């Protein structure tokens, strides 16, 4: 009986997951392509890095943004990155992806027009490169270094460390909770 109930709960959770994921995709697309229409600042909202990444993807690929609004969005993304890095809530690979999108745009803009796109991004990234509390280097960081995706800078190390700590903390809590439930 208990097994049956837990299977039902699991099924229900899975169906909820699917429903939420479907809705999320549409919302991301709609907000992404309409990013210029926001009546608040983007960074007023608490999106997770993957969501932000997805929206930026839609914006860059489908919205055909003009340089000014692209600059504006770049500044907003910088705000997010700083916040993600501070709270350790971003995985290094997602951070890199977001950064790469902005860098790519910067490069394209530099080639097409002689105007710096993502100037704010570059400037803020400079500040991000010197946070305090960088101590160890994770496996992920080594991988990124070996892949030569981007030059290694302290912010990546910082994020990597934070992300690892946060992941371990979650696991420990989950184990403790499962132990309590078993008792």
């Amino acid at each position: 009986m208990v097994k049956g109930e837990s299977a039902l709960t699991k099924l229900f959770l899975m169906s909820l997951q699917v429903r939420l994921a479907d809705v999320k995709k549409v919302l991301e697309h709609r907000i992404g392509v309409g990013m210029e229409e926001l009546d608040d600042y983007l960074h007023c909202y608490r999106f997770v890095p993957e969501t932000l990444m997805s929206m930026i993807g839609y914006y860059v690929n489908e919205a055909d943004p003009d340089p000014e609004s692209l600059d504006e969005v770049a500044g907003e993304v910088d705000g997010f990155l700083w916040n993600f890095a501070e709270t350790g809530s971003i995985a290094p690979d997602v951070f890199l992806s977001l950064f790469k999108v902005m860098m790519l745009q910067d490069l394209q803009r530099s080639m097409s027009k002689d105007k710096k796109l993502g100037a704010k991004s570059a400037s803020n990234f400079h500040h991000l490169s010197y946070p305090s509390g960088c101590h160890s280097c994770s496996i992920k960081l080594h991988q990124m270094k070996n892949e030569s995706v981007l030059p290694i800078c302290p912010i990546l190390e910082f994020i990597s460390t934070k992300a690892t700590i946060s992941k371990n903390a979650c696991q420990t809590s989950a184990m403790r909770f499962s132990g309590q439930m078993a008792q």
Partner: protein
Amino acid sequence: MTKSIPLLSSSQVISLPRPRFNVFTPTPLQAFSTFSNSWVECGISGGVEGFSAIADFCYLLKPNFTLENVAPIRAAAEFLGVMEVLESSKKFLYVNVFVQWQASISFLQQYRRLSSPVDEYVETRCLKVIVAACAKAFGETKYLTAPILFLANRTPENNHHQHTTSSQCQTLTEILVHMSSLPDAYASEAIEALVDAKVNLNLKCRQSRNVRSWLNSLIDNDCQTDRARCWVVLCLSHMLIKGAPANRPWMELSSQYWCTLLEHVDHLMTMVDEVMKVAHLLQNPSSASLSLSTGQAPSV
């Protein structure tokens, strides 16, 4: 379990009035010889309770309807073709259950399906009442406002106006919260019907700058369970998407709505993921200890 009933004396049998219906005329002995759930297993809708009421009715005892027994009695009446009981149960339902959304919600909250056509009868009508009330509340709400803002902005000059708008908004909030707290099958069906109703949230949110505060208050404070939060978010998101324009401007003037809902979807998805991970760990303690020892995240 079979309960033995003492046989009736011949004088008692003779004193009973003649049954009204030829469709089914059980003798008292037949009617009450077995009191068990086997009625349902034998295919008699409404179970013991419903059948007993119909048997009583055959001997001029009118059913005493309550919210708990009206469905079983109606099911038995439908099964046995007792039109008078069908009519009286319908009247009872329209007066006590289908009359307003609160009553319909309460009825569905306690309803136990009978595997009878009466299930569809009451469920369809209850959901129709709830969805109509919700669509009406959306139509009547001019300003979506979180309660705290309403109190903070109250002044003698705008007191009456704000009180009116707030009570409309409050009604809408209450219906949404109660609808989302229904059992999942009902909540899902109600949401589908509401999405099909012609309520354009994109137009609605143009009229208010406080959509975000209202949404946060509705989802974080008014909804009591994560399950209800999921249903509310899904409902509003689907309504918003359905009424959205196909081309630019993508969000019209409703970006607060879009972004806040996405924020909550993000949060709920993370929560559902975490719950599933814990459920997985509880089911497979060995994988938990393995993941701890290797320092890797458990696979889900």
